[in-house]
């Protein structure tokens, strides 16, 4: 069976995706919008002050209660997106409500900025009223690892876990960690992805559009994928959306901005280089979520145009720069 589909040891099956962004929530909604290719950008309905960025890509219709079984006292927007994306991914992989050994379920998430709404709230209290007047409850939700921790609690993830904060390649760092956990047999299933939420602090802190690129639209979202070994997926009869192949984290330089692509192609022994997936740009730039959302988008593209060729998703840590930390991930059709 394994020989027939010629799986390499570096290939891992994607059996569930949970995208949340301005163009849609969940696989079906997201896939339909991918076909339409209509940008979902406009003025924020949630934030009062968006500075020079009049248009953003917000998760317009997102209500976290739609995805959770119990009411929470407080959640940062970033954590809301993560908890819902995990629920969608588990549902899509047909793992929701099944008996998974919690020690064999892992979680790896990336975020460029973490919980900026909560950080802003807590620091504003500290700066205006004094050190005694911060909020202990909100403070615990300011930590970059709090969305991952809350997801571990919500979905009883007792296996390997990591939170990565490396700008817009954060989700690729998480993918790299998750792939190793599966390859090494440390987990049967890995929930993996990225998140970032729009906030006034983020929009006022970004460079001006003329510095970052005139077509740059800040966005928010989360994307979580269920990754498992091909053998595990086939044994449980899961639908395999795609295979994720080699990935590479590197520092791109001015001289060779595509160094990561060269590396990843070399690791997969691919000549000529794989095609680079062109992000549709309809859901804005979602920072820590962007490589995970682009991976979901690439998977949907492959599902609509099945083929055996690899597609490369390439990301750079800072949206305006093709230098600094960068990453590439290869994906091919699961059919």
């Amino acid at each position, binding site marked *: 069976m394994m020989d027939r589909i010629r799986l390499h040891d570096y290939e891992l099956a994607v059996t569930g995706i949970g995208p949340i962004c301005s163009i849609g929530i969940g696989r079906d909604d997201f896939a339909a919008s991918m076909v339409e290719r209509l940008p979902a950008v406009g003025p924020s309905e949630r934030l009062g002050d968006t500075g020079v960025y009049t248009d953003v890509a917000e998760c317009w219709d997102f209500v976290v209660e739609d995805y959770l079984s119990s009411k929470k006292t407080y959640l940062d927007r970033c954590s809301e997106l993560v908890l819902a994306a995990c629920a969608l991914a588990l549902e899509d992989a047909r793992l929701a409500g099944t008996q998974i050994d*919690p*020690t064999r379920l892992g*979680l790896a998430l990336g975020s*460029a*900025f*973490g919980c900026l709404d909560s950080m*802003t709230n*807590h*620091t*504003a209290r*500290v*700066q205006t009223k*004094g*050190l*005694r*007047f*911060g*909020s*202990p409850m909100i*403070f*615990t939700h*300011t*930590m*970059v*690892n*709090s969305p*991952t*921790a*809350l997801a*571990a*609690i919500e979905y009883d*993830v*007792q296996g*390997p*876990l*990591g*939170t*990565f*904060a*490396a*700008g*817009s*390649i954060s989700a690729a*760092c998480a993918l790299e*960690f998750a792939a*190793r956990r599966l390859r090494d047999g*440390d987990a049967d299933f890995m929930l993996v992805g990225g998140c970032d939420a729009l906030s006034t*602090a983020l929009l*006022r*802190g*970004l*460079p001006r559009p003329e510095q970052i690129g005139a077509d740059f639209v800040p966005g928010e979202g989360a994307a979580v994928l269920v990754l498992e070994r091909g053998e595990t997926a086939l044994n449980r009869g899961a639908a395999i959306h795609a295979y994720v192949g080699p990935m*590479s*984290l*590197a*520092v791109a*330089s001015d001289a060779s901005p595509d160094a990561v692509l060269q590396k990843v192609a070399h690791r997969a022994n691919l000549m000529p280089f794989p095609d680079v997936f062109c992000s549709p740009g309809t859901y804005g730039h979602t920072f820590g979520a962007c490589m995970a959302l682009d991976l979901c988008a690439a998977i949907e593209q492959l599902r609509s145009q099945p083929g055996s060729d690899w597609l490369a998703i390439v990301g750079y*840590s800072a949206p305006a720069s093709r230098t*600094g*930390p960068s990453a590439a991930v290869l994906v091919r059709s699961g059919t």
Partner: protein
Amino acid sequence: MMKMKRPIPENRIVVTGLGAVTPFGPTCDALWQGLLSGQRALSELTKFDPTGLRNTKAGQIHDWQFAAADFSLERTPDEAVQFLLVAAAEAISDAGLSKQLQSGAPAHPQAGTVLATNFGGGASWEEYMSGLLDKRPSPDHFADFSFHTAISDLCHAFALGGPCSQLSMACASGTAAIGLAAEMIRDGQVEMILVGGYDELAPSPLSGLSLLRTITDDDLRPFSANRSGTLFGEGAGVLLLESLEHARKRGARCYCEVFGAWQNNNAYHLTAPDAGGAGMARVLAGALHKAGVPADQLQHINAHGTGTEYHDVAETEAIKSVLGAAAYDATVVSIKGALSHLMGAAGAVEGLVAALSIYHQKVPPTTNYSEPDPACDLDYVTEGCRDQNIQYAASISAGIGGDNSCVILGRLD
């Protein structure tokens, strides 16, 4: 009893360079000598007005000096990143790699970095928020706060052109980073990785930690019956990890070998430890399993040992549940009583101290231990530093959110 021989893996990883900026001073030697002497590096917090905190003492770095030009940087980075850069320079020099890894040299594709932090550029965040509240926010302050800026600065300063990543798993970050870096080398992705943890004292995090009553209003006494909480500090710890083959080829000194690591979450509560330290037990057991080291052969543990009422018992129970009777033969040390809790730097600094303990076959004491607690009944090395024959050691960390990490180090055969 016949002891099992640990199987030797194909790609072995060693620690060949160490660097530290801590409240004891801006060098690794200042840290090691300070710890062995049983001194304490806590002082009055003067970086900002501490009024309102439960305690005005902290592990602050005083008289800090930094020149951005020394690192070929055009702007002065946030102080937390300054600590990281200075510690990294020491680790690179210690490893004998200053000529290869310096700004202006061609980017070294076989040298990467894995960093760890809780709060990134914490002081820059405070500056940014101050501007935002005054309706004059500065994108420069936001950039200096942003976590990935540290990666870019480090790669630029030391011509690192290999893979890079950064973890933020609260106070478990630094230990997890050592484990991740070792795996990246073991996979053949790269020959050497600079692993660094860093953080600084800033008002907002300390306010939150004080309000959570994690900070004691008394004194920091890890594992003591009269413990009542921790005290926080700042700094950076950097380890240079490389493949044994690469290290031997260039004749490098090896402090220790990195055998395996694990990281997880209690999956229980954002701030409360789980009963019996089940999550920490899983992380220690997982790391030993990955390392191929039998639990009863672990001789030394650099513990998280925060001095909080519930954590120290949970950690003791976790160690006992994994090591069994052998737990009473191992030395278990918390350096926080001497140094304070360095947050995102803690794991890297404690891993570094564990490496030094193996290299010198000597363990520092749990400083400021004062009163035995029947629930914390292991050998905490309370009488002063001790010579010890160490083959295998663990460094354990835990953090807010319930994250845990553990790395197993050992003497190079």
